[in-house]
């Protein structure tokens, strides 16, 4: 028994779980004062139903024996009983580590539905989404031991180079980003969207949230090595480099476009950088990581304006940050993978264009599946218990109507 690796994975799982309350602060600060509790409750709710979804069918579909190279056997280990009875510490904490990923991924989507989704509908959505969307996609990328379906040398891409997704560019960020877009479209825009100011009510919360996310993300990326080894250390260094420089990318765009570098921009740059380096953290050298981070910050800073142009109310920019930077990080492996550090080299490091194509295909598969499956779940809820609160509730504030509480004495 390798106690070093086990200790690191126990630590990593704890760090990743901290990301979700961190996200509650990040999103909560960005929302309006009259809906901050609901915003934070969506993250805490994701922890509640996320673990339930994981121990029932999520873990089995994600990590169970593959059925036809599509999903893991849903009855593989109901309740994680076999895993725990087996007594293998690495297997047990790996199952726990997986739960923390499922929770943060579905929690990310809540940024798209701010201020207007019924809390019960959110809980049902999160439960179904973990089982039907997160678990299958994670099975493709990481499931079935070392022969991941959508991984290098897996059955889907055979002997082609890649695809690589070390910690979840496809499974977590592209997946959540697409789901956020679908839910924003299904729910419709908030009353006053694009007309009334909906300014973030507490920017220090946003920065606190970004700090907690960054800290937790070390478990996410370096923990994805499943060992306290060179890959973990590489992932740690690249994560730090890309994230720091992503701040610069975001605030530079702001300085040029808007005239000022903002704290919201810096906090957003942190998350964009973390997102982009997630799939690539074990494939790049720090120069590659710096390029990925800088462009992630800049691209996401530009992408957050798209919702006004196209008229979808992705309230807290899940699409602009997670889909755009997740896509960029996943594709960047095809361009900037070092080749000596891990696996195949990218285009600019002497590899061919094939790796880029394979990365794009892996991203494309995730986008298509996430869009269709999320749409089905969303429609199912919309036409049964309903998705959206009444206009009256939305205007007076969802906190009081859905939770019977207000965060502040006078909340606008």
């Amino acid at each position, binding site marked *: 028994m390798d106690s070093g690796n086990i200790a690191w994975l126990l630590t990593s799982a704890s760090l990743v779980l901290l990301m979700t309350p961190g996200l509650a602060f990040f999103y909560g600060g960005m929302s309006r004062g009259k809906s901050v509790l609901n915003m934070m409750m969506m993250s805490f709710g994701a922890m509640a139903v996320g673990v339930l979804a994981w121990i029932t069918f999520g873990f089995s579909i994600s990590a169970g024996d593959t059925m036809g190279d599509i999903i893991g056997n849903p009855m593989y280990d109901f309740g994680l009983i076999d895993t725990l009875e087996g007594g293998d510490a690495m297997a047990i904490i790996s199952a726990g580590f997986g739960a923390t990923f499922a929770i943060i991924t579905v929690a990310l989507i809540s940024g798209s539905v701010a201020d207007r989704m019924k809390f019960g509908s959110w809980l049902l959505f999160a439960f179904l989404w973990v089982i039907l969307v997160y678990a299958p996609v994670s099975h493709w990328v990481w499931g079935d031991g070392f022969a991941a379906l959508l991984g290098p040398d897996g059955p889907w891409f055979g002997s082609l180079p890649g695809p690589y997704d070390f910690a979840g560019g496809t499974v977590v960020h592209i997946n959540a980003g697409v789901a956020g877009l679908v839910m924003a479209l299904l729910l419709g825009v908030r009353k006053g969207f694009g007309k009334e*100011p909906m*300014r*973030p009510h507490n920017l220090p919360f946003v920065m606190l949230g970004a700090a907690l996310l960054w800290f937790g993300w070390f478990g996410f990326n370096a923990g994805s090595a499943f060992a306290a080894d060179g890959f973990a250390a590489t992932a740690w260094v690249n994560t730090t480099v890309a994230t720091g420089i992503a701040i610069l990318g975001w605030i530079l765009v*702001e300085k040029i*476009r*808007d*005239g*000022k570098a*903002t704290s*919201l*921009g810096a906090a*957003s740059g942190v998350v964009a950088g973390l997102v982009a380096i997630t799939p690539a953290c074990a494939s790049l050298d720090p120069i590659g990581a710096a390029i990925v981070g800088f462009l992630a910050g800049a691209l996401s*800073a530009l992408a*957050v*304006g798209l919702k*006004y142009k196209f008229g979808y109310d992705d309230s807290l*920019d899940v699409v*602009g940050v997670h889909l755009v930077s997740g896509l960029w990080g996943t594709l960047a492996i095809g361009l900037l993978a070092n080749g000596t550090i891990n696996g195949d080299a990218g285009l600019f490091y002497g590899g061919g264009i094939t790796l880029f194509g394979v990365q794009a295909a892996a991203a494309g598969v995730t986008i298509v599946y996430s869009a269709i499956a999320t749409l089905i779940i969303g429609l199912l809820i919309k036409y049964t218990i309903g998705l959206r609160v009444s206009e009256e509730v939305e205007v007076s504030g969802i906190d009081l109507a859905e939770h019977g509480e207000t965060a502040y004495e006078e909340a606008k």
Partner: protein
Amino acid sequence: MKLVTAIIQPHRTDEVRAALEAAGVKGVTVSEAAGYGRQKGHTEVYRGAEYTVDLVPKTRLEVLVDDADAATVTEAIVSAAQTGKIGDGKVWTVPVDDVARVRTGEHGADAL
């Protein structure tokens, strides 16, 4: 008796309070206010989206004084609050019919 009301820049509050004390004023009521004059509001940008903030934060001070002191108190406030920039605020005086001190029940100038 007069009621002197001042709307000033919040960052001048301490200076004005000190000036009032120096002018012998025994009490003042301070509240947070919001509004606009010729200064108008300002714009804020969040993730590239521009918001116009119509009302800017101000501090409101109210002082009850003897008729004879009203001009001195007004001057003290104006000179302490002045920065010379647009948005410095306003001070006005209105007559007061009566004042009662709650603790003792005194009325008029005795209650000041």
